[in-house]
């Protein structure tokens, strides 16, 4: 990856702009970030992530890519705030104002058990004209606090950036670390990691589907779903020693115990999960409440760079597990769930299909793994350089960008699926009525912690 950076060093800002813009016609943009001396734009190719990078010595001026690719708006604002880069032409959103419009603010303290964040709604009557998601209330400065640590010291902290996508983030982190260390995990470790990752998808998706039922007023569906989630969290504790899978994917290894019990419990779970889903999707009034709510058109989804089930519910095709297969997914390819209607129903349906597919993958992986013992985690010494880990988490593409100098983390940047998708939620709320916000929001069910960092 370093060779790309040095090749990039001599270009003019406008040549760089053209290169990134042209590149984005061929490969999806994952995001952009900066570190001392470099601005990086990340793409996802079929063989993995790669960067186009611009080198700067002192304060520099670049043409904002976000003018042409609005999905980069938040990325470039962050780069401008933290580094001596000035961007020309970052689009600024303005809150509409005028007669008949009402503004009201919700948060940063929410009424339920919800993370901190603030939403400013602008409505005309019942319709939302504009929604401003003001995030960052949970900003702990995690990237800065990881600098100077070794990979092993950082791993438990990386697992604790965000509780709901801990395993996915650890997975992305260890992939970057292992790439720099030149370490290839054995097949049993890769299979165990797939199992951990799919367990995380499973408990998150069942939570999201139950929450979408709750937001539509279907209390029975919510209660049944949350009971199923509890069962899955207990399976996580059984298999990985932690209900939320923290530290289950350490550098060089994976944690997976009680496989026989896990396999048999997952079998029972499947029939109960199918019954739960049949009950929800067979309920005409619930389904009609989900349909046409929170519409995200395929064009908007693509322009905003939506990822994960949010994108796949709006005709998106990319799932990192199949698009750029990694680890055990290289041989165990999931079939990709898709829907085209872009409403709450589409997103819930995608999650339903993904849960069933996760159960299939879990079964196959557990069979393939059999009773093979997991090797002890290898010794990992990342060499100096830059590497990217990209995996498909429950909410979409999870990116960890890592720069190592003298064996320690010099820069670690997280691009989470929630960071990518928050601007998408905002667009899905346009022309939706205010009381539908909980329903639309829960159909995405994004994290604040990994967006705020």
């Amino acid at each position, binding site marked *: 990856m370093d060779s790309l950076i040095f090749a990039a060093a001599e270009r003019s800002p406008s040549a760089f702009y053209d290169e990134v813009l042209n590149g984005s016609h061929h490969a999806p943009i994952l995001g952009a970030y900066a570190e001392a001396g470099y601005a990086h734009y990340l793409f996802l190719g079929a063989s993995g992530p790669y960067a186009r990078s611009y080198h700067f010595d002192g304060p520099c001026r670049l043409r904002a890519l976000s003018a042409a690719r609005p999905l980069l708006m938040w990325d470039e604002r962050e780069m401008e705030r933290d580094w001596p880069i000035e961007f020309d032409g970052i689009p600024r959103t303005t809150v509409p104002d005028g007669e008949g419009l009402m503004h009201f603010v919700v948060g940063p303290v929410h009424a339920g058990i919800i*993370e901190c964040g603030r939403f400013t709604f602008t409505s005309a009557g019942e319709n939302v004209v504009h929604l401003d998601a003001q995030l960052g*209330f*949970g900003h702990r400065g995690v990237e800065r606090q990881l600098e100077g640590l070794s990979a092993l010291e950082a791993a438990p902290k990386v697992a604790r950036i965000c509780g709901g996508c801990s395993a996915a983030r650890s997975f992305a982190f260890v992939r970057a670390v292992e790439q720099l260390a030149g370490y290839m995990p054995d097949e049993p470790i890769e299979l165990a990691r797939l199992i951990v990752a799919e367990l995380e998808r499973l408990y998150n998706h069942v939570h999201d589907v139950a929450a979408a039922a709750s937001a539509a007023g279907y209390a029975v569906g919510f209660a049944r779903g*949350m009971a199923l989630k509890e069962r899955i969290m207990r399976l996580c504790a059984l298999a990985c020693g932690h209900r*939320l899978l923290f530290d289950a994917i350490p550098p060089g290894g994976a944690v997976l115990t009680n496989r026989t019990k896990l396999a048999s419990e997952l079998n029972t779970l499947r029939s109960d999960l199918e019954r739960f889903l049949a009950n929800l999707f067979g309920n005409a009034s619930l389904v009609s409440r989900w349909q046409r709510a929170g519409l995200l058109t395929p064009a908007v989804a693509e322009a905003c760079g939506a990822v994960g089930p949010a994108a796949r519910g709006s005709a998106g095709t990319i799932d990192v597990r199949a698009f750029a297969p990694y680890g055990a997914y290289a041989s165990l390819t999931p079939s990709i769930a898709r829907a085209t209607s872009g409403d709450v129903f589409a997103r819930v349906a995608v999650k339903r299909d993904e849960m069933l597919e996760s159960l299939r993958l879990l079964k196959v992986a557990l069979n393939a793994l059999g009773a093979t013992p997991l090797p002890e985690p290898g010794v990992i010494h990342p060499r100096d350089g830059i590497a990217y880990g990209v995996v498909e988490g429950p909410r979409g593409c999870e990116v960890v960008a890592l720069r190592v100098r003298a064996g320690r983390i010099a820069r670690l940047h997280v691009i989470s699926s929630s960071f990518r998708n928050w601007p998408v939620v905002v667009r899905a709320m346009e022309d939706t009525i205010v009381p539908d916000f909980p329903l639309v929001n829960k159909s995405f069910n994004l994290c604040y912690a990994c967006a705020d960092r």
Partner: protein
Amino acid sequence: MSTYRHSLGIRHLVCGSCNGCEHEMNALNNAYYDITREGWDIVASPRHADVVTVTGPMTEAMRVAALATLQAVPQPRVVVAIGDCAAGMGPWQAPPAGSGAGVELGARVVVRGCPPTPDEIRAGLAEAAEVLEARRA
């Protein structure tokens, strides 16, 4: 009065938590733990609360809103720190993270864990009910 003396209105206040503690707080309402059996309820307004559960290390951006929320809770009230971050022992201890939401907001009960299990949180809430009863007496 004695019929209601162990009932709790619980207001949850997130101060930069990773959402792990929130997953476990949410579990208190599922069919396995169902805290409504204890006469406990998660309430939407701080003005309805007896107990404030706080999570996270506290952040610079949340500090003002967190204090305002706490001040809206009538006395007697008990602050319960949920999780290692709130206890000041989490992974994020340098600014803009604070010294623990429970530490900064004067938690009387501390539930350690990353995150604590629903049973551990339930035990912490039971302790808060005792503290509250002593303060009312």
